[in-house]
């Protein structure tokens, strides 16, 4: 089993005729994802390889029966792309686009929530259920099907953790990159709740970073609502306060959202935290007695 996506997920690619959209559509198809269509306004009726391109998401959904969409459009158009997908009845929306203004996300979130749509991102690597479906930009080959859920605010750091797990022979049920922006669609808690419900997931790796209070909320959720083991890593111990470390969300300010505070809270709530990023896989293996 897995969460959010599986072998039946039918995926649209919004922005499929752009460089990134075309490249990753091909990668997703090569991985086995059912990419049923693409959307680029003004390019309807054309094709990218075998994938039909439509002018609107509404048209694409009507023709293909897609239930998920992944967004590769540039940041100035991301808000429109997300709202269009929700309007067209898409149930799972993955926004890869980086650099979406915060006020745009504050406008999108209530619409997404009212419609009951699962939005992952923006500014994220996407979601993958190894061997079944990959929606996003993560390298598929480092993954291996299994029973460990991975949830992260980061991109390449997640690949690092996944590669460590795979090298130890520990497969993953689903990997979810929720993105590094201050306002996003899916939180750690949303993903942890889904992993707790999923019979195919027996343990979870959580990768957080400085800024905000999402890791603290996750810690409370693990203590109160989960019986599956969770281990964590928090990036940014050496980050200076008040500086934006690449991700717009990664700012620790005025003694809030620092790595040390987050690590202390996670440990207080019974979550083992890897001391270094090289220890993530081994920490999980030790926790579940494998590897």
């Amino acid at each position: 089993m897995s969460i959010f996506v599986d072998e039946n997920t039918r995926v649209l690619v919004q922005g499929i005729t752009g460089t990134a959209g075309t490249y990753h559509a091909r990668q997703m198809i090569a991985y086995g994802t059912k990419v049923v269509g693409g959307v680029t306004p003004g390019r309807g009726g054309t094709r990218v390889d075998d994938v039909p391109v439509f002018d609107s998401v509404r048209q694409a959904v009507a023709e293909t029966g897609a239930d998920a969409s992944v967004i590769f459009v540039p940041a100035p158009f991301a808000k429109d792309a997300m709202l269009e997908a929700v309007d067209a009845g898409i149930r799972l929306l993955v926004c890869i686009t980086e650099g979406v203004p915060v006020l745009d996300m504050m406008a999108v979130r209530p619409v997404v929530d009212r419609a009951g749509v699962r939005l992952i991102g923006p500014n994220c690597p996407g979601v993958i259920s190894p061997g079944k479906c990959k929606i996003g930009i993560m390298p598929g080959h480092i993954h291996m099907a299994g029973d460990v859920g991975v949830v992260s605010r980061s991109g390449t750091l997640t690949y690092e953790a996944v590669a460590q797990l795979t090298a130890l022979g520990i497969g993953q049920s689903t990997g979810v990159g929720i993105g590094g922006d201050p306002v996003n669609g899916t939180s750690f808690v949303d993903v942890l709740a889904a992993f707790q419900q999923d019979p195919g997931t027996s343990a979870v790796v959580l990768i957080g970073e400085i800024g905000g209070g999402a890791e603290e909320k996750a810690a409370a959720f693990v203590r109160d609502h989960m019986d599956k083991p969770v281990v964590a890593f928090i990036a940014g111990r050496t980050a200076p306060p008040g500086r934006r470390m690449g991700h717009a969300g990664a700012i620790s300010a005025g003694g809030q959202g620092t790595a040390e505070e987050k690590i202390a809270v996670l440990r207080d709530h019974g979550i083992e935290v890897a001391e270094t990023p090289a220890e993530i896989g081994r920490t999980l293996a030790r926790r579940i007695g494998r590897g």
Partner: protein
Amino acid sequence: MKIHEYQAKGVLAAFGVRVPRGGLASTAEQAREVARELGGAVFVVKAQIHAGGRGKGGGIKVCRSLDEVFQKADALLGSDLVTPQTGPEGRRVRRVWIEEGLAIARELYLGLVLDRETQRIVLMASTEGGMEIEEVAEHTPEKIAKEFIDPTVGIQPFHIRNVVAALGLTGDSAKGARVFLEGLYAMFVAKDASLVEINPLVVTQDGELLALDAKVNFDDNALYRHPDIVALRDTDEEEPLEVEASQAELSYIKLDGEIGNLVNGAGLAMATMDIVQHFGGRPANFLDVGGSADRAKVKAAFQIILKDRPKAILVNIFGGIMHCDVIADGVVAAARDVSLDVPLVVRLQGTNVEQGREILARSGLAIVPAQTMEEAARKVVAASRGE
């Protein structure tokens, strides 16, 4: 993005927010001329630097004559002003803002900030103007009133009534507050601000409300739709290497250690700094080359890192979209281009990693290869110590 006080006041005034009359000067002579045109008996000379705490650092001077304006401006201009927020080296004062003196009855605080937890805009108000709001929040949190505004709905009359009541404003001051708050909020959403602080907001003895100081930060992600705001950027206020990095589309932050880092991805870059520190080294920088690191970008990254004179450099790349062989080619070419003369530890992982490692090995360069993050961190720390 940050802007100067005088720029913030200009932006706010365009939205109907009242600010004291004033003018900008980059010489003492200009300062005196601005004061002469303002008229009156009392003037304030304010150093324009991005760091806060200017009052404590002696960057704000009350003057009672045109000659005094000249003298204070002359002393401030060209000096390195040290405030609690600048660090010991201070910030060079290139401009001063000359303002009319006001007869102040009360000093209040107003703030607007994007709140990630509630996904709303928070309007904060306090009667404790002129103090650090963080201190008020810590010691007397009951003195801060908060209104949470949904940006899709906008500021409502009840938000304003609540703030007016919390600040104890009545009569004309209450009417002035309504205009002031509506203007403040309108500017915030129209210009994609991320933070606005009016500290202090003053009530004059005549009951007028004015922004005596103004701090405005903007959402970097939204700057593409605000060329007027981008035009206000003052790169003199930024770390020169960070300006150079932003021109090369690299995400770089200068730190004060001795080990340079070149990494793809912000999370992995932070984690790399962390593990370097864990094994006893100190990172000289944060540098994320992003998802499309080609030879030109890697070269630019090396050039920036080298200007900070590190004792060793660690390249940590997890090849996903980027293939490790392409990255390896870029690293080798860039290392040759810049005649790299400090130890270089390279750790590649991910797509086409074997080909990448082979390219490094065949390059003839003294590159120290590493397989894991831990091995890479240990090796670069040892190399930085000449071991």
